């Protein structure tokens, strides 16, 4: 048993020394110090256990001998974990995910494609927000229009397009939530960047090193579980999430052109004012002009009420686009990240339980 473990350690150290020149994991270059710490840790732990075994032999204590056998077995397991991880992570980093399945792609394909997909989602969400804001502005502007007529200084005013104020009121909360969705995606992007930074990735060799020592073995296992889960499994699950809901079905709002609506109203207002002003031509002309202006404006204003004559379809089309786009955004920005974190936290729980102590990281969900 001891012999086999020592063979394993020697084999590992040979491989590790060969690989020591390249500390590249998923595009992040490890500091050589980190690798040195890991190698030194494993060697130091093996030496300590050997010394303790020797003490056991000298004192003729079977208890010490059996403890050292278990400990050297654990160092062997740590080395097996490190060996498996060194190969597995390289494969994992080069995976690219598509709706059809997974394939081995280019170097660091996983991180690159995941980042670009989150950026695309962020861009689309921001575009949606700006689109909604523009539509909100247009509808509110036309909705606030007011017209009427003036005769001898006395006036009758009314709002011809109040329906657009109602549409603006429908867009406003959706637009606000879209902005929240954008920030949720930004959070996801930042989280991805943080967990794939050099500092966070350093938790993996540190965890492996700590796992080689008996006192901090469980803590080392937790560190391995958390860093593996967050740095490698999380990007993979996010990539699978984006593959599952690809392509993003965002529909642009048609909106309205305020000038199309406000210009006729403005012209009519001008006609009415002119009509009122040219009293020199006689009050009858002014009155006829003003009444014509009023009836023309009333005819235009009747359009928003006439949903059955076509405008209803136009408004409904915009509402369909608004809600359909927001439904997709909710799925991408709120539901999927929550589900992804839940899956990753479940995997981290199993991983950390297998390697050390069970750890729950689902608290990250609260941030979303």
């Amino acid at each position: 048993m001891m012999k086999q473990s020592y063979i394993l350690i020697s084999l590992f150290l040979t491989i590790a020394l060969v690989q020591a020149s390249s500390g590249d994991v998923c595009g992040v270059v490890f500091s050589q110090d980190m690798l040195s710490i890991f190698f030194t840790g494993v060697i130091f732990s093996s030496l300590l256990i050997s010394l303790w075994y020797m003490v056991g032999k000298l004192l003729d204590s079977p208890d010490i001998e059996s403890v050292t056998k278990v400990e050297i077995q654990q160092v062997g397991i740590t080395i097996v974990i490190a060996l498996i991880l060194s190969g597995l992570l390289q494969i994992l980093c080069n995976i690219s995910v598509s709706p059809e399945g997974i394939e081995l792609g280019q170097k660091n394909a996983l991180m690159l494609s995941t980042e670009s997909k989150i950026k695309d989602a962020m861009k689309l969400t921001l575009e949606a927000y700006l689109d909604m804001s523009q539509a909100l502005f247009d509808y509110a502007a036309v909705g606030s229009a007011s017209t009427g007529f003036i005769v001898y200084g006395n006036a009758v005013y009314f709002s011809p397009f109040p329906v657009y104020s109602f549409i603006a009121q429908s867009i406003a909360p959706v637009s606000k939530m879209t902005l929240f969705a954008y920030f949720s995606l930004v959070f996801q992007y930042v989280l991805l960047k943080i967990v794939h930074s050099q500092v966070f990735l350093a938790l993996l060799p540190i965890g492996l090193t700590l796992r080689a020592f008996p006192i901090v073995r469980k803590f080392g296992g937790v560190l391995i579980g958390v860093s593996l889960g967050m740095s490698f499994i999380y990007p993979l699950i996010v990539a699978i999430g984006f593959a599952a809901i690809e392509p993003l079905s965002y529909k642009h709002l048609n909106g309205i052109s305020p000038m199309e609506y406000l210009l006729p109203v403005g012209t009519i207002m001008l006609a009415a004012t002119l009509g009122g002003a040219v009293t020199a031509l006689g009050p009858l002309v002014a009155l006829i002009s003003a009444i014509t202006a009023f009836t023309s404006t009333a005819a235009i204003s009747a359009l928003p009420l006439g949903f059955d004559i076509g405008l209803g379809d136009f408004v409904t089309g915009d509402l369909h686009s608004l809600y359909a786009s927001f439904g997709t955004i909710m799925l991408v920005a709120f539901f999927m990240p929550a589900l992804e974190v839940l899956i990753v936290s479940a995997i981290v729980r199993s991983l950390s339980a297998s390697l050390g102590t069970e750890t729950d990281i689902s608290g990250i969900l609260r941030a979303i």
Partner: protein
Amino acid sequence: MSVVVTWSMLAIIGITISFLLSALVYMLSHIFSSEMMSAWSKHEIQTALLTIILFVSLTSLANMQFVKEYTAGAKNYLSNLYNDAIFCQVSLYSSGSGLAMISSITFSINPTIASIKNAFNVFLNPQTQSGDEKKSNEGGRQNWSVGISPASFMQPVLIALSDIQSYLFIPFTTLQFHLQLFTFIFNKGATMILPLGIFLRAFKFSRHGGNLLIALFISLYFILPAMYLFGDSLMQSKFNTTQHMCENYKPSLVSEFGTPLLAKAGLGGPESFGDNWDGDFAKIILPESSKDLIFNGKSSFTTVFLRMIVECTILPMFAIIVSLGLAREFALLLGSDIDFSQLVRVV
């Protein structure tokens, strides 16, 4: 040349690797004479066998014709509900727009001080000419105006309508989200989520994640549509199935709220309300019992609003809560205690 490993193939590869690993550990357990390793490998082989049974049975169940039919029925129900809700919103726009326009009419009198003086002079002495006063007020610096909106009594209804309009985005977005979730689950559930769950379940270190995905698949693929159909049956038992949510609704907003408001303002008599009028206009709007209020079969403004809240928000939310609650039970059955409450909060 790169080879694409499909999701189903991935599940099979996962189970195969799990079998091979377990066999390897079993062999090593004999070399090292370790009982612990032997027990571990036996347990893993049992789990892998159970995972195969799960994969085969769930895939077969998902491909059964009756499952496809009832899920299609649930999707139709959701789509029709969404279209109905949009129709209701447009009707609300129509009513609100009419009321807002009437309410916005303002009469404004814009006399000059000079013209008032002139009017007084003419009233007191009809022979007096007022040319001097007219000239003194040129430029309109002393103008003032008085305006009145005679239909402003509609403002309370308009404010209520405006508030309702603002809150309606909740049922609409809820419905749209459910539609998107439904599409996602039925397009990717059996082909992606289940195989991925099976793959993750095959290994000890990712078993909780696999159990979570399998439990979610079972609850969202089989239970969620059943819950929608339950909601559909519940509403159908109380409403005419051919009747849309906002059918016959259009004129009711004015008649329900406008007429009693006019009566309150002293502009309408008891005769407008028939024998029901006893000075309490709420009785005109609200039927006597709460059952009638919600299920009277008539599309009054109140019933439309309540039906929209019940059918478009409460029932879909109930469906999600029940489905995710059952997902937790399924996960427990598979051997993982997963807390879905955070996901329910997000939904």
